[in-house]
């Protein structure tokens, strides 16, 4: 069966979070009849429970639908859903590279947000034809005129004829389908050229092995073809090719230039099929790989420990399984005096970290204690050696350090003008360097700051939202490393250093954070038989101190009429609480104390 290239449309939907990307995707799937509305589970493309709950897309997804146009022609739509978060920027860029065009969804009430811009620029960088759609026009606060002006003024793309839709109710969504045919170009590419296919995602399936999601740029691939990944050099024989139904894989005979589909081959590890890599054939390789491949490296590190030390092997198994599907996740064993055996794990960002943590807890039923997340610091030693530091405990002695560097990001923050002051204050507190501001439509502004990554990985996003009453949006990209005055802040509990609580921080903010940590720990550590000093120190210098007073009295009230059930419950609760404690020296520290210090900035 030969498919006419001119009847294929490969596209994605780009939007700021919550502007209705997934809802529009669902609507397209429903209207093209792939699923009846009864079969539709809301947001078909977000497979994981976590994705549905958080309303975010974590893994790229794709679906193929058939659209019957008014003139009777049938078109194949390949909709590629991209992850919607800055942590997964690289995955987004690869998904875009697999498309020929993009639908830009903008919320009719909120207008353009930081991620809208970031995503549009990314799409334009990939030479995609972008057409806008104004969504949520059923909202009372919808102001499509203003949003159309914004799109034209700020992004500079034609928006006067943008479909005004409600993806939720289905209003005017048929116009979107028509626009896809008219405004998104058909794919190009020679079916008879050597195979050149772009990997935009891959996942591990326990039956099929690795399933590679790809876009065929040139040539063709079918069962039996020996393929090779150009960057990882892995080779394998193709077992099956096919395209994406709704939530299922539908095998077909061949994938050829212009098509989007999947390949399964005798591959056991997603590490062999890196996103962005180019697939070609062993016998007749293409001349050069597709541009843009890079190996994604973790940006944020933290220690992950099983709450129950005996679950260490379970945690390792779970991380290995997650890694099968997530090549960006890295981990290696480490030991902490306070927390025992665990892993130092690397993530793309804080969201990625949170997702992994939640998946470990939900899908693998593990209770996890994490240490404060940190970034990779470059430590230049006096002996001219440079080490990349991911675990604060490994920081060399101060005398061996010449200087240190920390990663800096370029951030764009979009905010309504009334909150500019508050947001600038926030960026200032986080050691931001101001790089200018643009006004948009007179009511909003785009602020540009360079910010140290370690200042935004904790709770920057929460602080941004709370200080702007939810009106600010934020996006960033890596800028590089810069020299910085960094120190290691240690926490001593009952005079003993708790390695799991140490972290690297800028000298100017160390005092403040040390004080807050001590205060927080004082609240979290229950009273014990003796007084417990909690100190924050830099080297041998104590910069903050709190004390947990000794417990003097813990007696139960009346045990009335011989009903001892309540007393037993209370004692059991007390015993259970004790089990969840970590022994550091002779002090018992509850697990949640380790986590509580991660969230300090609640103004």
């Amino acid at each position, binding site marked *: 069966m030969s498919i006419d290239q001119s009847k294929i449309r490969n596209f994605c939907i780009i939007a700021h979070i919550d502007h209705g990307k997934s809802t529009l995707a669902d609507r397209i799937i429903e209207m093209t009849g792939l699923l009846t509305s009864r079969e539709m589970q809301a947001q078909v493309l977000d497979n994981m429970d976590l994705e549905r709950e958080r309303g975010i897309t974590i893994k790229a997804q794709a679906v193929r639908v058939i659209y019957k146009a008014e003139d009777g022609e049938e078109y194949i739509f390949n909709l590629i859903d991209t992850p919607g978060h800055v942590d997964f920027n690289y995955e987004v860029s690869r998904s875009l590279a697999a498309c020929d065009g993009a639908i830009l969804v903008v919320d009719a009430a909120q207008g353009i947000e930081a991620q809208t811009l970031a995503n549009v620029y990314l799409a334009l960088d990939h030479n995609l034809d972008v057409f806008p759609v104004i969504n949520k026009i059923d909202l009372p606060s919808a102001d499509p005129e203003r949003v159309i002006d914004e799109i034209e003024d700020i992004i500079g793309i034609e928006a006067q004829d943008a479909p005004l839709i409600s993806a939720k109710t289905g209003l005017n969504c048929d116009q979107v389908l028509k626009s896809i045919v008219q405004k998104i170009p058909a794919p190009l590419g020679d079916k008879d050229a050597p195979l050149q296919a772009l990997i935009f995602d891959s996942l591990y399936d326990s039956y099929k092995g690795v399933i590679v999601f790809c876009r065929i740029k040139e040539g063709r691939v079918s069962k039996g073809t020996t393929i090779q990944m150009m960057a990882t050099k892995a080779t394998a024989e193709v077992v099956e090719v096919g395209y994406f139904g709704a939530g299922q894989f539908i095998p077909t005979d061949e994938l050829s230039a212009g098509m989007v589909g999947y390949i399964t081959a005798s591959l056991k590890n997603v590490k062999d099929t890196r996103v962005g890599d180019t697939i070609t054939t062993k016998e007749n390789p293409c001349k050069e790989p597709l541009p843009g491949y890079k190996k994604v490296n973790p940006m944020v590190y933290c220690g992950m420990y099983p709450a129950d030390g005996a679950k260490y092997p379970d945690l390792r198994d779970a991380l290995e399984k997650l890694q099968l599907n997530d090549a960006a996740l890295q981990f290696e064993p480490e030991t902490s005096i306070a927390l025992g055996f665990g892993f130092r794990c690397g993530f793309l960002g804080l969201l990625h970290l949170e997702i992994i943590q939640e998946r470990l807890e939900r899908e693998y039923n593990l209770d996890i204690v994490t240490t404060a997340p940190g970034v990779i610091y470059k430590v230049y030693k006096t002996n001219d050696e440079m080490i990349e530091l991911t675990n604060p405990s490994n920081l060399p002695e101060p005398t061996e350090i010449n200087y240190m560097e920390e990663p800096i990001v370029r951030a764009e923050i979009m905010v309504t003008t009334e909150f500019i002051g508050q947001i600038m204050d926030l960026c200032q507190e986080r050691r931001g360097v101001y790089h200018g501001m643009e006004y948009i439509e007179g009511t909003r502004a785009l602020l540009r700051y360079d910010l140290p990554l370690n200042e935004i990985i904790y709770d920057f996003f929460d602080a941004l939202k709370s200080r702007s009453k939810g009106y600010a949006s934020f996006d960033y990209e890596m800028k590089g490393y810069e020299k910085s005055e960094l120190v290691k802040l240690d926490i001593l509990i009952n005079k003993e250093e708790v390695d799991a609580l140490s972290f690297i921080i800028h000298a100017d903010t160390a005092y403040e954070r040390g004080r807050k940590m001590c205060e927080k720990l004082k609240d979290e550590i229950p009273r014990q038989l003796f007084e417990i000093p909690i100190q924050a120190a830099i080297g041998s210098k104590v910069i903050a101190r709190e004390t947990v007073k000794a417990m003097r009295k813990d007696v139960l009230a009346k045990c009335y*009429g011989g009903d001892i*059930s309540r*007393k*037993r419950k209370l004692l059991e609760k007390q*015993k259970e609480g004790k089990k969840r404690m970590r022994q550091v020296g002779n002090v018992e520290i509850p697990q949640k104390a380790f986590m509580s210090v991660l969230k300090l900035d609640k103004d």
Partner: protein
Amino acid sequence: MVKQDLEIYIHIPFCAKKCGYCDFLSFPQYDIAYVPALIREIKNANLEGGQIKEYRVKTIFIGGGTPSILKGEEITAILQQVYDTFEVAKEAEITIEVNPGTITKEKFTSYMKAGINRISMGLQSTNNHELKELGRIHTYEEFVSNYELARNVGFTNINIDLMSAIPMQTIKSWKETLERVVALSPEHISAYSLIIEEGTSFFDKWEKGLLSLPFEEEERQMYYDTKEILKQAGYNRYEISNYSKKGYECKHNIGYWKRVDYIGFGLGAASLIHDKRFTNEANLKCYLQTISNQITKTHQNVQILSQKDQMEEFMFLGLRLTEGVSMKEFQKLFHDEFETIYGIPSKRLTQQGLLETKEGRVCLTEKGLDLSNLVMSEFLL
């Protein structure tokens, strides 16, 4: 045949008014169907496998709520049914709880006639402001005249309940309460610290920050003053919160801590018979209905105690008594050395200064008494 000891608890779940701190099973509306139902329950007493014949009753405790809200004849009728159904020892300790606001001379007289020999009076404080704050319906002066009434009628074993760390209380006012009570020379004093329990009106106020409670330091001082003042006055602390003159320890309560068998009658009452614990239906309407249908199955949550449960109870109940638990008795009951089962925690707690061993008995130290929950939780297996 040597008969086994049995204790009887009878619950009267009514009060003139619910106090702000109270989370016991009691209601401010009296239900006239209750006493007949209670009498019927005692008549058809169900010991979940235990035989009435094998027991001799050593203590009876009529608690509440406020038992003194009932008429004297009603109490008499209830006790008469107990005497008809059970063999009650001549020397049995028979206690009734009274509220100084609902008691009269006539009631005291009929209690005496019905065989009651111990009176437990809920005073809580001698400060009228504090009493009002607690939601008590009586004044200190009313209490004193009723206390004297009880003495005049001939009661020679009286307990007074007190409560520290209550709203508005100061170290000074608590000392005054203790001194005034000691001056009355009751045989027994129960002194508890207020605990804010969920589901009480105090809890709601406390959550909203509307309850002005003594500071922690003050509360601790009150606790130490209690021990000191009562000791000075010749009261022996035989249990964490209970003090008495020599020979006037509350036998009924000690029975709970020593795991003597007991049967509870009335709404929500708890029982321990052999290795079974069970409680009565706790919903008044259901309770009355069950009894009137002559179904004697009022027991719920019948729990058969495992050896482990029994060991744990033996420890955490027994340690409430200042004399502690006997290691020999432990071995006799469970056919396991105390050392084998509890060697590790008892050694650790001893090192921490919370536990001590004297003449084959393991007991809490002074510090251990203060931190009893912490110690007891270590004996859960």
